[in-house]
């Protein structure tokens, strides 16, 4: 077979992608730089990683971020999935309005959401810290899971559930035997997306975190602002690695089940 002719448009695609990845690559490279100032290359080292591990406050922030991500992701997965299922089955007259309300948290700019949380939580007198962070993160994670699950549900033929009912399944059984297995990949990939969003969030966390509770992005933000210690490079690289892991996981989950591709799912999602 003849190789396809090289097209100039590929050059453009490559150039933009290069630009996209340049800063990321920089961070990774400089995390192994022995020099304290990050200008000159002074040889390979893992020293910054060692320093990072022994930095109590950084590790604390990492722990906080993971706890926050996992708990807000889990809570929102339940609320978002159940909501999407309920909405898909219902024919409320106000369905459209309700959907808009559910999407509100990702329709308004992050900074306003942060400001809103800050003002409202202090109005309620809630102590700022992990609790407020979890509430805020759950609020903006719900829509991601809601959208992904809703999309998958829309792709499932309604009569499949009805067939289960017809064959003798109660609504409960239908949900666990049919609906849940079919939307499970969507719930998982939605949750991973939500987890990544939680792990990524600076703006909202900035407003709702307490003085004692740092998340990783907040820590990174203040470190960068204060002046750089090269541990940050190492920390950023760890975060990148974590994210790539999530992406791989999500890719694996949406593409295969028992080693076999679920064709309708893939084509449906690829078209969106």
């Amino acid at each position, binding site marked *: 077979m003849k190789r396809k002719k090289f097209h100039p448009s590929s050059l453009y695609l490559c150039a933009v992608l290069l630009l996209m990845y340049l800063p990321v690559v920089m961070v990774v490279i400089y995390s192994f730089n022995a020099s304290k100032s990050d200008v000159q290359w002074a040889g390979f080292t893992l020293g910054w990683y060692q320093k990072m591990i022994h930095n109590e406050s950084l590790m604390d922030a990492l722990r906080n971020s993971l706890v926050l991500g996992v708990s807000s992701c889990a809570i929102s997965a339940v609320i978002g999935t159940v909501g999407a299922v309920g909405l898909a089955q219902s024919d409320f007259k106000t369905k459209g309005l309700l959907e808009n309300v559910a999407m509100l948290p990702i329709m308004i700019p992050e900074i306003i959401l942060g400001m809103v949380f800050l003002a409202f939580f202090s109005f309620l007198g809630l102590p700022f810290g992990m609790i407020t962070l979890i509430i805020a993160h759950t609020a903006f994670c719900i829509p991601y899971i809601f959208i992904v699950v809703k999309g998958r549900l829309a792709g499932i*033929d309604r*009569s*499949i559930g*009805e*067939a*289960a*009912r*017809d*064959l*003798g*399944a*109660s609504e409960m*059984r239908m949900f666990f*035997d*049919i609906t849940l*297995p*079919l939307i499970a990949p969507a719930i998982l990939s939605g949750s991973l997306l939500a987890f990544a969003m939680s792990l990524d969030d600076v703006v909202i966390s900035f407003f709702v975190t307490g003085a004692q509770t740092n998340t990783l992005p907040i820590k990174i933000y203040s470190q960068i602002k204060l002046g750089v210690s090269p541990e940050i490079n190492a920390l950023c690289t760890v975060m990148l690695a974590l994210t790539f892991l999530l992406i791989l996981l999500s890719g694996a989950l949406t593409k295969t*089940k028992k080693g*076999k591709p*679920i*064709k*309708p799912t893939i084509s449906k999602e690829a078209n969106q």
Partner: protein
Amino acid sequence: MVENILELKDITKSFGQTQVLRGISLSIQKGEFITFLGSSGCGKTTTLRIIAGLESPDSGSVLLGGEDVTAVQPNKRDVNTIFQNYALFPHMNVYQNIAYSLKLRHVPKDEIKRRVGDMLELVQLPGYERRMPIELSGGQRQRVAIARAVINNPSVLLLDEPLGALDLQLRRQMQQELKKLQKRLGITFIYITHDQEEAINMSDRIVVMNEGRFEQIGTPGEIYDHPKTSFVARFIGTANIFSGQVKRIEGGLAEIETPDGLCCAAAGDYALREGQRVAFSVRSENMLVAKEPVEHFDLPAAVSENSYVGGMLRIAFTPRAGEPIVSSKHGIHANIGLGERVNLYWKPENAVFVDMQEADA
């Protein structure tokens, strides 16, 4: 007395502003093959879903084996459905699909195995247990759907245009198989289709539906030869509908004045009066052509079109009033040329009165 397995009593259903069912009633006997025939949007699928319990009627009731099941959940009804697109569970293999309803009923494992095996034998798919639905052809999916629905021996099987997605040849073959299966299992089949040929080939009785009402219920022969309404006459086969005024009644024959000219029809059981407005239907294959005038008829028309359709010569005529009249025969009139003026007539008993008020009968 024959047992009524299923009764529908005065069922109505609306979706929003649209009234889908306008009060339908029907009794179905055990072991019957009954077909709901109608074009899309006539309410036939809604009727089926109400029987299955997937939709609840606004008013009226559903009786299954004499018991009111109107408010009973679909999973508690002794009724199973074959869905239009089969609705196989995509995440289960053929075995799991067919075994699903038995598993829900906690049937012992080895019995499930035996019965699924029997079912696969019945639908001629032995050895397909481990296949996933996506790996099956349309016809095979159809068979799995059948096996899954009948494994529980439901008293009524509902089939929602089950052959709609198959090509013509496979369709014919599956029609035969379904009919045989029904005979063998003795299950009542309620079948939905918009294909009149399918309905006539398979059914014991046909229910012709139109705009949420039953137009006519009868055997295929009755529906074909004695349509009660102009809708039924038009829907099945090719019929010419005439309307006019009764001019004279003599010896069981009624002469009727129509805009196209004078026609004649056998009055039959109808107590017609002179001056009464009536409508009647004449099937295209009963439409006869003569060069000379015919007694009781004065229906001149010009040949406007002739073509062969499915081995039949189809001739269209333009009569006085202009609405075309169609005749079809197996190549008898091949000598009629376009534009030729002829006289149309028929045997008086071949004209069937339609849209008569009950009081006139």
